[in-house]
């Protein structure tokens, strides 16, 4: 016989799948449970895995060596001032620090790790050296035509219009590939749930009855 946890998981899975027939109270119940559990789990894991080992325990065990953590904790607390009308403006200080930090991290990350390597990889040799040159040519034409498609300072007609239409074809092919992958991903999730229902719930249930 399946355990209580398996029964609950099977019940909520079937509740979610029932939406495929039509919207119903069972689906809404499962949806609300999922949202609540996710939030509760997130709060619990941040408390236990982040705040406790990185803030609470270091401050308790060796305050002298970790006193600077008080500032980080203070910034975190200040974020919640936004819920107190009279001091809500103070929360912007903490927000400014967070935004500043992540802008700094992201700016370098995007330039150094994305823009420059991707531009470099798009600069391909077009001098003939076999079949590879054909792929290089397709890549260069694709990149340039798609860039021109997204260049809106010139009206898309004449030569520019023709090139941007080629860009649309490249985009459509990439969207098709992305959509194909998306379908595969969604089917994979369905497979996961069905495998659970069949192997962990239905089979033991039928086995215990027969």
């Amino acid at each position: 016989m399946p355990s209580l946890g398996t029964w609950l998981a099977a019940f909520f899975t079937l509740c979610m799948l029932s939406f495929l027939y039509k919207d119903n109270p069972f689906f809404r119940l499962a949806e609300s449970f999922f949202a609540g559990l996710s939030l509760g789990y997130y709060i619990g894991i941040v408390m236990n895995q982040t705040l406790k080992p990185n803030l609470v325990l270091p401050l308790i065990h060796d305050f002298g060596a970790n006193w600077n953590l008080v500032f980080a904790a203070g910034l975190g607390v200040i974020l919640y001032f936004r819920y107190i009308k009279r001091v809500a403006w103070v929360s912007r200080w903490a927000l400014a620090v967070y935004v500043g930090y992540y802008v700094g991290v992201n700016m370098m990350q995007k330039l150094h790790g994305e823009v420059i390597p991707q531009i470099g990889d798009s600069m391909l040799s077009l001098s003939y050296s076999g079949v590879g040159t054909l792929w290089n040519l397709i890549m260069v034409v694709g990149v340039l035509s798609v860039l021109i498609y997204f260049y809106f300072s010139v009206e898309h007609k004449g030569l520019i219009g023709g090139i941007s239409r080629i860009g649309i074809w490249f985009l459509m092919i990439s969207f098709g590939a992305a959509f194909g992958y998306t379908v595969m991903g969604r089917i994979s999730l369905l497979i996961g749930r069905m495998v659970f229902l069949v192997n962990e719930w239905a089979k033991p249930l039928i086995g215990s009855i027969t």
Partner: protein
Amino acid sequence: MNLERVMQVDRRIIYLFIAIGTILPILFVIGLPVSITPPVQMAFDRIENQLQKGDVVLISFDYGPSSAPENAPMADAFLRHCFSKGIKVVVIALYPLGGLSEAVNEVSKVAAEFPELEYGVDYVNLGYKDGAQAAMKKMAENIHEVFPTDMRGTPLSELPIMQNIRTYRDMKLVVSLATGIIGEWWANLVNAQFGIPVIVGPTAVSAPKYYAYLEAKQMAGLLGGLKGASEYERLVVEKYPKLAEVYATPGLYTATKGMDVQSIVHMIMIAFIVLGNIVYFTSRKKPRKAS
């Protein structure tokens, strides 16, 4: 048969076909062949040919239960590959909604298949860390400060495996099993700034964008969704035949078994798409009734 009725078929009929196409291959495993693609072969070769026994690999669980059917088989295959080859594994989780529970489940499941391995010596689970980007950046300076203890609460200084591991320089490879953007950060932040090779196993939905990183040599391999996982399973089983017994365990969910279902469901969908197009073009050819 009135073709226009086919055009207005109730979508629930299609769902029924998909459900049957999903359940039957789960009950009766077909074992369709899996072909290997270059991105997966690259990932396998990186571990098999360029790493030695005793090298350390960081495996980051950057996914949760919502994408486990795709990512968990990848995690299992990577863990089995590393453990079979004698590579030490440091596990972390950066995905907030269930990354840690996935890491705990998969590591304990696979580690049980290798009783000769010792926790803290051959592998370790450092647990979850919030603020993935910041943690990744800080790990380049000192992993011990980012993860002061493992997930059991043991200080890293007391774990033999962590004695000589302080930064990315002390590890040979990062493997990220990712949903969402965290996998990208391993490529465009950690690989770009600190140079450590990165393999990403993303969900199929996000796989296309990773090809750009792979083409630009910012990644050492790519496993796109369930298909990528099934390819890796095949490569691992071919190299380590002992693992074939594990993958043949009745009731064990594997990507290779999942691909049977994928193939059947894709055939059903293709059939509906072809049927819909035939009906559409046939009905267009009919002369319109005079108003």
